[in-house]
């Protein structure tokens, strides 16, 4: 039969609830629904196949969206830059408490395991205990940390770390920044400035897998201000459904690089699109 809107609506409603309960943002779901309707209405399908066709098309649509966002092999990027004699600079940003500092330590661990030399910039010069926290991680990882006093300019600390890396032939600089709400213009200007001063090779947005609709607001604003090139979603081990990944990819068309799956250094898993889609639709 020829598919009409009402044929699709019933099936879409069930899929919509599944996506909502998986923390995909409502505006992303609306957009996916209208894309799907545009594609399917007027096409001819077997009546008993409608539910299946709609579901498969939605899954494919989301899969295509992830493919369009591209793939990033950060380790080979670092290798390429290393061969030019220059250090690779990565900065980490996101709202308060998402796991940026812990993620910086995990990435440092990953790089060290891959035989890269690393220096960490303690560019959160604001929050109580922030410098002590990252300094302890650096100590445990046996890595150099560049830090100044609380209240110092995060851009200056970052630049310091770059100078250190250049003069000591360090392969990679990881810049940990303070948590900030994207609703604070001053703090968003600050992260823009840090990135301008240091010109990172890669900017990573660190988001919380447990966040709901706010993920899309965070991703959109952070991307507008910083043009980050990829994201890491933390706390996936907390039984998060992972819809935040879809929201971020939809609104920024940048890839999810890794998932944080625990509090230890090794708890960083490359994002796998297929197993993600399987857990969402399977």
């Amino acid at each position, binding site marked *: 039969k020829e598919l009409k809107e009402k044929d699709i609506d019933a099936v879409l409603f069930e899929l919509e609830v599944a996506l*909502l309960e998986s923390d995909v943002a409502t505006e992303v779901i609306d957009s996916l629904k209208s894309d799907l309707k545009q594609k399917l209405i007027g096409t001819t399908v077997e009546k008993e196949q409608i539910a299946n066709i709609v579901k498969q098309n939605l899954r494919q649509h989301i899969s295509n969206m992830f493919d369009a966002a591209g793939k990033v092999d950060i380790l080979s990027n670092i290798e390429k830059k290393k061969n030019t004699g220059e250090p690779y600079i990565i900065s980490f940003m996101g709202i308060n408490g998402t*796991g940026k500092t812990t993620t910086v330590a995990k990435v440092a661990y990953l790089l060290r395991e891959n035989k890269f030399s690393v220096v960490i910039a303690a560019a959160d010069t604001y929050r*109580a205990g922030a410098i*002590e926290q990252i300094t302890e991680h650096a100590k445990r990882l046996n890595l150099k940390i560049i830090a100044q006093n609380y209240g110092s300019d995060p851009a200056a600390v970052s630049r310091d770390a770059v100078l250190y890396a250049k003069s000591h032939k360090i392969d990679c600089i990881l810049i940990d920044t303070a948590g900030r*709400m994207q609703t604070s213009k001053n703090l968003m200007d600050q992260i823009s400035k840090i990135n301008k001063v240091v010109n990172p090779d890669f900017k990573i947005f660190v988001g*919380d897998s447990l966040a709901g*609709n*706010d993920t899309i607001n*965070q991703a959109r604003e952070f991307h507008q201000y910083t043009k980050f090139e990829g994201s890491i979603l933390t706390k996936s081990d*907390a039984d998060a459904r992972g819809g935040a990944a879809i929201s971020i990819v939809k609104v920024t068309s940048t890839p999810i690089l890794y998932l944080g799956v625990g509090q230890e250094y090794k708890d960083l898993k490359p994002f796998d699109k297929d197993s993600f889609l399987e857990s969402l639709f399977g």
Partner: protein
Amino acid sequence: NLKNGLRAALKKIVNSSGIDEALIKELAKDIQRALLQSDVNVKLVFEITKNLEERSLNETPPPGLSRKDHIVKILYDELAKLLGTEKQYEFQPGKLNKVLMLGIQGSGKTTITAKLAKFLTKSGYRVAVIGADTFRPGALTQLKTMCEKANVEVYGEEGNSDSPQIVKNGLKHFENSNFDVILIDTAGRHKEEKDLLEEMKQISKVANQDLTLLIIDGTIGQQCYNQAEAFHKTAPVGGIIITKLDSSAKGGGALAAASATGAQIMYIGTGERIDDLEKFSPTRFVGRLLG
């Protein structure tokens, strides 16, 4: 009051000339949309909007109430179901109130401990703090630095990984100094970390707390209910604090903690500074949800 807050959110129906089925359906749809965008638990949203629609269409307004006012009251009743039903905890003067912080990693426990220490001190209570997060690097420094601003003493043992023991030693340390409130900060944990939930049970045994405060990140989505339920089984939750409401999040997800535990929301966090703590106001909160 809450009714007035809802009135503002219901301008469409209140300003209309007449109530008919189409308008009620439209109202239910608008409310559903707003609540879903605010992260309110999906099942709760469908329940609320279904009840709103059915009751608005089928119930006769009580005498003296216009049909419009009746609909506002129905929405008020339905939304009120989102808030906790247990009695709100009241700090008892003249005895020691032990408060245990509980919550997911990064939800704001340490920050809230300092904020609450200052808030309660300003309200006239003698407050002390125990830093029992033995896992996170720099946790004790973070807590001490913040509590210094409130002139509140923090007991902690850098390098001791036994959290229950630190609580025990801390309570002993503060024993004969007539404190009204002792706040106990703990490490973050979630429902899949069974060993950490077990640790929380051990901490509770030693602390024998009068109040367990569940600290919930205001940006949390649909997983809040499940997490809160698991926490409640570990240590019965007597109060909720929703943090980071200065973000763009509406906090609807965090509300599920109230339905999962029955506990009332006591305070909200509205920023990083030690003064950024407010008493919870249902009117403002629901207004933000629907806004």
